[in-house]
């Protein structure tokens, strides 16, 4: 198996239909196939062994992804929002290889030992250097080859590289997408960045379904709405913060429904209930899908479908309305099981850790190998339960990571800064529900001396990125710990939930 098998089928079955870009002037499936072949020739001519990407969404993304698969080299998209030092550190770990970036990205990666930096314009604009694609592809069909390496956000230490092999991604696509299932008039807007697993799976799913990809490099709600209307977009995938902004922008425009969007899926974090309820009103005939998945599972493993959304919107039954908080049911071919600390399966309705098993589940990191147990189960580190109807409810990271605007924040990083102030004796950073950001940061402090609460956010702001700055500072006499001295963050989250503004909780 190879990702190129998916593109080859699309090129043979769809030929001149536009794969990426506008109906006029976009890249067809045949052209995408040819450019992937040329890119593969370029990659193979380089002494490197990986294809690194430091670019926003652009046509270079699918060309690099499929070209890397053709050449038999892992595709490694980097988070271009990282500070220079962090970005270069990941680039150094990815060398030797070819690095493709927009002008800024190519400059930032210039001089990294072992990386050949190429600008996006040169990569897809100047095609004279590449050899013409061979008619029959000569890619490896070894399903064990690594297709994609995705760096985790590194909240609990240095970022790790999640390994997705061809067998995982191809299994995911064959198991969840119907070949050429999209009509010729369908188009999907991709607003998640290329270094997110959804940015990878969106390319693969759309190509295999035959759905035109419209890329939005920098998310902005008004640009998103305008692009949807101008490009005839019918499908979209957004993270919760994007949907919150889109809902606000539509309301600011007078609350006119957006009728052209036939399907809207969301995932990547906790969706505040007021946002999804308002979205259901503003997209009255759209099919909503809540998708739950992880990088290590090749994207979606469970989803809540369109009918459940509409039932939950209009029902008076509490149980049916509560389904909006559910991640739905597992995909065919994926097993989900809730286990206690001793790995025993718990009864329906009881909370435990979510385990998942299936051909699309990798659960592997370059640095520490496979985390699958002997029976193939992957521990997601997410807590949750399955109700009597078989619906999965995800309750958040067991690791206490704060997820703000789709960004994973490490409490320890914030606490370390707070503790540098000598008036702070103990510090805990937790997340509480927030309608706009999913979660916001609350700092709970045991003071050593009198300390104005307003000074601590400034301290964090001076040392860390603005997303880490506490929205609230609370003072207490002592923090809750268990017998072994472990901070009970769960208790803090309950105690300070009232500072959140998500009334549904």
């Amino acid at each position: 198996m190879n990702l190129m098998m998916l593109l080859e089928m699309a090129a043979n079955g769809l030929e001149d239909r536009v794969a990426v870009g506008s109906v006029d002037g976009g890249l067809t499936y045949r052209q995408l196939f040819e450019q992937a072949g040329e890119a593969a020739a370029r990659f193979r001519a380089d002494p490197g062994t990986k294809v690194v990407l430091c670019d926003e969404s652009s046509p270079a993304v699918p060309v690099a992804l499929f070209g890397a698969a053709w050449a038999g080299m892992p595709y490694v998209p980097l988070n271009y929002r990282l500070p220079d030092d962090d970005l270069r550190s990941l680039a150094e770990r990815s060398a030797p290889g070819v690095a493709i970036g927009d002008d800024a990205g190519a400059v930032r990666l210039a001089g990294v030992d072992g990386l050949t930096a190429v600008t996006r314009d040169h990569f897809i604009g100047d095609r004279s250097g590449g050899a013409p694609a061979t008619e029959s592809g000569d890619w490896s069909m070894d399903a064990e080859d690594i297709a994609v390496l995705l760096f985790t956000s590194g909240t609990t230490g240095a970022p790790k590289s999640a390994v997705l092999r061809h067998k995982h991604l191809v299994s995911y696509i064959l198991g969840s997408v119907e070949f050429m299932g999209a009509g010729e008039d369908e188009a999907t807007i991709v607003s998640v960045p290329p270094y997110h697993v959804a940015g990878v799976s969106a390319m693969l799913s759309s190509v295999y379904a035959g759905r035109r990809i419209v890329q939005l490099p920098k998310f902005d709600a008004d640009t998103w709405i305008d692009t949807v209307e101008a490009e005839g977009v019918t499908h979209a995938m957004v993270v919760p913060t994007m949907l919150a902004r889109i809902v606000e922008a539509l309301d600011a425009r007078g609350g006119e429904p957006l009728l052209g969007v036939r399907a809207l899926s969301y995932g990547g974090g906790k969706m505040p209930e007021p946002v999804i309820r308002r979205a259901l009103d503003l997209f009255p005939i759209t099919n909503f899908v809540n998708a739950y998945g992880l990088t290590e599972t090749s994207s979606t493993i469970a989803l809540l479908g369109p009918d459940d959304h509409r039932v939950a919107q209009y029902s008076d039954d509490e149980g049916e309305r509560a389904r909006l908080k559910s991640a739905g049911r597992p995909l065919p071919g994926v097993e989900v099981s809730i286990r206690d600390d001793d790995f025993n399966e718990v009864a329906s309705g009881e909370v435990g850790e979510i385990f998942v098993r299936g051909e699309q589940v990798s659960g592997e990191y370059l640095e520490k190998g496979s985390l699958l147990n002997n029976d193939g189960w992957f521990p997601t580190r997410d807590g949750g339960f399955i109700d009597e109807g078989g619906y999965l409810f995800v309750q958040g990271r067991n690791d206490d990571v704060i997820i703000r605007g789709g960004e994973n924040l490490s409490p320890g990083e914030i606490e370390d800064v707070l503790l540098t102030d000598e008036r702070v004796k103990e510090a805990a950073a937790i997340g509480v529900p927030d309608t706009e950001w999913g979660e916001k940061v609350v700092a709970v402090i045991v003071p050593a001396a009198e300390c104005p609460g307003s000074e601590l956010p400034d301290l964090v702001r001076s040392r860390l990125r603005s997303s880490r700055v506490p929205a609230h500072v609370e003072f207490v006499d002592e923090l809750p710990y268990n017998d072994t001295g472990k901070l009970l963050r769960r208790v803090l989250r309950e105690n300070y939930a009232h500072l959140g503004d998500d009334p549904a909780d």
Partner: protein
Amino acid sequence: MVELKPGARFQSTVCTTEVIVVKGAGEADLTCGGAAMVAAGTGEVAGAPAADAAEGTLLGKRYSDEADTIELLATKAGDGSLGVGGSALAVAQAKTLPASD
């Protein structure tokens, strides 16, 4: 006879059809156009499909046997139709999952 396992690929010897095994295990008498299929990339294409096995194989469609123990995905289309042990394979019902990414 060929050995079936998920991910294995086979080609027709009488038309352009190629398939990948989605489901199935063990030895099977896999045919296309009435002639035995071989591992992809290992055989020549010559002749034409037999008259009773020439309904064609469609790109991207899934084919399964009556007992639903075997499922093949056509990665290249061709004029021959697929069979196992003398029985024709039928187009499997398409999955209707909503798009999630």
